[in-house]
């Protein structure tokens, strides 16, 4: 049997309007419009469709069948750590003890969740090798933003005016964007053989440098082996070293960012700690820092005195807040559950097997696709689709053809350093059988590219829709069904 995704013709909600009367919410027979000034009343409810529950259920179930997730098949999206999400985390996150818990309840009523959050702060601090961790940021990029805000707080405090943030040319797009949002100018440092070029770094660092943002292992899947030297170069010039934790999964329990002399560390809980990616979010991006920077962390921190947990707002040097309340608690609870399931040894083992899986897959593919930069990989590796150029094929075609073979494509065209990049991160939760099936599919596609390149150009044929025309969408912008009704 061959893979084929479900194809449904699902009407838009606006096309499915059944003019149903709502029966989910109690009726309000004697509503008094005079409670509101006439200038503000909306007498006719907003134009949203009214659909019966069976039709709603079918609508979303059919849509879900046209969506590929980790539970459907291998999803080796490089840099995103699409590992399996334990089901028990989902069932615990549905417990009324969190679902119906209001963030403004008095602490006496929330001791259970505060204890979980407190312990999570400590566990992440141990994993990151840093003394204090804030759980507040909502995602990795939000952690970066907080990190840059802390950098600013620190230099403001010591009275130094530094306006530059450095990053390697392999850095993720969120890094420069976060630095700029925090008012910094960014300067790219070139790589040499895939890792930071120390000479170039030395030249770039000056007394205007506030920080260097460095993912490790980097986005090529290479460990930045000179990291201690890098830290020394930065620290000698009074600058700080920032750890983008997107790739922590490769090294957990083997080496810690804090021990590598990073000053600020973010964790990406939706990657490393197995919380679901939700089709694009929610995530969570806690930030850990050195002793020196801890006083600037956002409020509240979760604290304990004797055996009582509380929210500590009494931190006079804190920068304040970067989002409402404590953080994405539902996500934090899942990460806590995962760490308790795995334990210290399990986390280390997960890292090891993610690296094993990645190297195994790279080994199986290295004779079939160009693989620039190094041989020893961490949790991910980058291939190039450039060898198919003479057939008029691109990496995009390989990606689309993978869909027909039942896989989610890898990250493509990133990192920018590799021409026609295919960035593959299998994660530790893929079985050898699935790794082999993926390798077989990639090899098959390389053969198809030789024998029948049209197959790649026409791909995908077994997805819910054929190749999507991005140009047409760009030329004919339609961003809501109201645009369609206007004849957009």
């Amino acid at each position, binding site marked *: 049997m061959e893979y084929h995704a479900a194809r449904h013709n699902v009407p838009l909600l*606006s096309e499915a309007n059944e003019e149903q009367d709502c029966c989910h919410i*109690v009726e309000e027979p004697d509503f008094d419009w005079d*409670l509101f000034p006439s*200038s*503000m009343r909306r007498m006719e409810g907003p134009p*949203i469709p*009214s659909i019966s529950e069976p039709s*709603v259920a079918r609508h*979303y*179930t059919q*849509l879900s069948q046209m969506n590929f*997730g980790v539970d459907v098949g291998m999803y080796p*999206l490089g840099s995103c750590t699409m590992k399996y999400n334990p089901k028990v985390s989902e069932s*615990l996150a549905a417990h009324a003890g*969190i679902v*119906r818990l209001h963030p403004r*309840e008095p602490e006496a*009523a929330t001791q259970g*969740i505060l*204890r979980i959050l407190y312990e999570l702060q400590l566990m992440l601090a141990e994993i990151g090798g840093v003394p204090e961790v804030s759980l507040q940021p*909502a995602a990795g990029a*939000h952690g970066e933003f907080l990190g*840059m805000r802390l950098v600013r707080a620190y230099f403001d405090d010591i009275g130094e005016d530094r306006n530059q943030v450095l990053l390697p040319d392999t850095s993720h*797009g*969120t890094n420069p964007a976060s630095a700029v*949002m925090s*008012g910094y100018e960014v300067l790219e440092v070139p790589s040499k053989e895939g890792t930071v070029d120390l000479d170039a770094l030395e030249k770039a660092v000056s007394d205007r440098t506030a920080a260097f943002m460095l993912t490790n292992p980097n986005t090529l899947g290479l460990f930045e082996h000179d990291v201690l030297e890098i830290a020394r170069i930065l620290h000698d010039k009074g600058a700080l070293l920032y750890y983008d934790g997107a790739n922590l999964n490769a090294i957990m*329990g083997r080496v810690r960012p804090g021990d*590598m002399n990073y000053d600020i560390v973010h964790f990406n809980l*939706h990657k490393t700690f197995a919380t*679901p*990616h*939700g*089709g694009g*979010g929610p995530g969570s991006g806690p930030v850990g820092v050195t002793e020196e920077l801890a006083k600037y962390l956002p409020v509240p921190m979760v604290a304990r005195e004797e055996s009582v947990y509380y929210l500590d707002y009494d931190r006079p040097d804190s920068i*304040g807040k*970067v*989002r*409402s*309340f404590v*953080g994405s*608690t*539902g996500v934090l609870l899942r990460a806590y559950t995962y760490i*308790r399931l795995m334990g*210290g040894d399990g986390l280390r083992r997960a890292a090891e097997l993610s690296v094993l899986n990645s190297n*195994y897959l790279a080994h199986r593919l290295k004779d079939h696709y160009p693989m620039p930069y190094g041989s*020893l990989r961490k949790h991910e590796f980058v291939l190039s689709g450039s060898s198919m150029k003479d057939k008029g094929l691109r990496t995009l075609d390989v990606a689309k053809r993978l*869909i027909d073979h039942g896989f989610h494509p890898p990250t493509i065209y990133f990192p920018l350093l590799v021409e026609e990049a295919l960035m593959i991160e299998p994660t*530790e*939760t*893929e079985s*050898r059988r699935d790794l082999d099936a993926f390798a077989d599919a990639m090899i098959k596609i390389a053969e198809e590219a030789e024998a029948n390149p049209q197959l790649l150009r026409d791909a995908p044929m077994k997805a819910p*829709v*054929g190749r999507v*025309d991005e140009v*047409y*969408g760009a030329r004919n912008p*339609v*961003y809501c069904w*109201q645009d369609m009704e206007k004849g957009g």
Partner: protein
Amino acid sequence: MQYLPNESMVDAMLEEMGLTSIDALYADVPESVRIDGLKLPPGMPEQEVAAEVEGLLSDNVTTQDFLSFLGGGMYDHYVPATVPALAGRAEFYTSYTPYQPETSQGMLQAMFEYQSLVCAITGMDVSNISMYDGATALAEAALMAVRVTRKEKVVVPVAMDPEKRSVLGNYLYGAGIEVVDVDYHPDTGQLNRDLLVRAVDEDTAAVYIENPNYFGCLEETLVDIKDDLGKTLLMVGTNPVALGILRPPADFGADIVVGDGQPLGNPLNYGGPTLGFFATRRSYTRQMPGRIIGLTKDADGNRAFHMALQTREQHIRRSKATSNICTNENLNALAFAIHLATVGKGGLVRMAQASANRAHSLARAIDAIEGFKAPLFGSSFFNEFVVGTDHEVGELTAAMLMEDIFLGVPLTRDFPDLGEAFMLATTERHTGADLDDLAVALKAFHDGASNWFAGGDL
């Protein structure tokens, strides 16, 4: 280990690669920083973890256990059963950003519909598929207003959640954007329009008005404020449920509309995850932060959806992106959309009417009790209102806890000008009996306190 399928194949896989140990895979890590392991408790079987975590969660006292009138930005609305059942489908929640549209059509269509629903309730032209929460949505709106106008000041009300104000300040700090805070009328709790208009000058990128505001009051000044703003943009913050019965911000000339989408489809979850919604005028589409889903077609001419205008985003534009946001609150946006799809227009109106009605009944009941004034302000309100009291709010809150009641949000610390005051919020979940229970408890407290006082030290 139940999540590591290759544990029994490690040696075979290593051998195939010509390696002898896992350690060889870490040969490039400097020896001086290698560790032997983490000082964390050992892993446990699922059964034990579940029991322990359930035990801790059961220690929490929830809004299901106690009668709660807490609001202040998060509201305990009824979430239809369709929401967890459908958003909980693993095809949805175990997927990620739809970089490959062909294999992500389901979520893409659902997000296109989400955008359309946000446009329907706010009246705006375009919506993205979410920001982290209401506070960061406001911060991103301010940054966008600065980009659009190339001006460097924003004007905001004092009557806003101090935490949201802090988030805004942090987002604008690095860019050196000035924030001016405009006070409210002590009698109405509404924005002082004269002060607002005076605060706006030619350097002002935008003003921000919340309707309802943090105190729950409707900001009637919003209706024609645009007349006084000239080229300054109008950013409106709102509660999506209120838009069931309140005119949409677009009617008042809003340029950007933001808010926390939590009241629809998203339970309290001790503060998150929620979603920030963000909508604007069509002419500003290219300046928007975050992801936007567009309609297009596939190679055969069939309807298809994709991520549109990606050249605004960090993964393409890097340092010149409109925002750093990557991972957003997609699943929460899906829950928001499923909630609206389930209850439809009539259901949203019912939610709004019931939430407002309960609050007004409650205010009348409390105002009748000696020692309380409700609402404290003489303006219209939606589902939340401020109560002034002769009692010390801390004591009152503690006393209500003894009655299994979460009183509401205390305001005395953040807004000392109000004296002893707190806010109460209601939703369609509250019954008439719930409102009576609170009124009875407050009256008993007042009577008890004054009896005790009258009785001296007897």
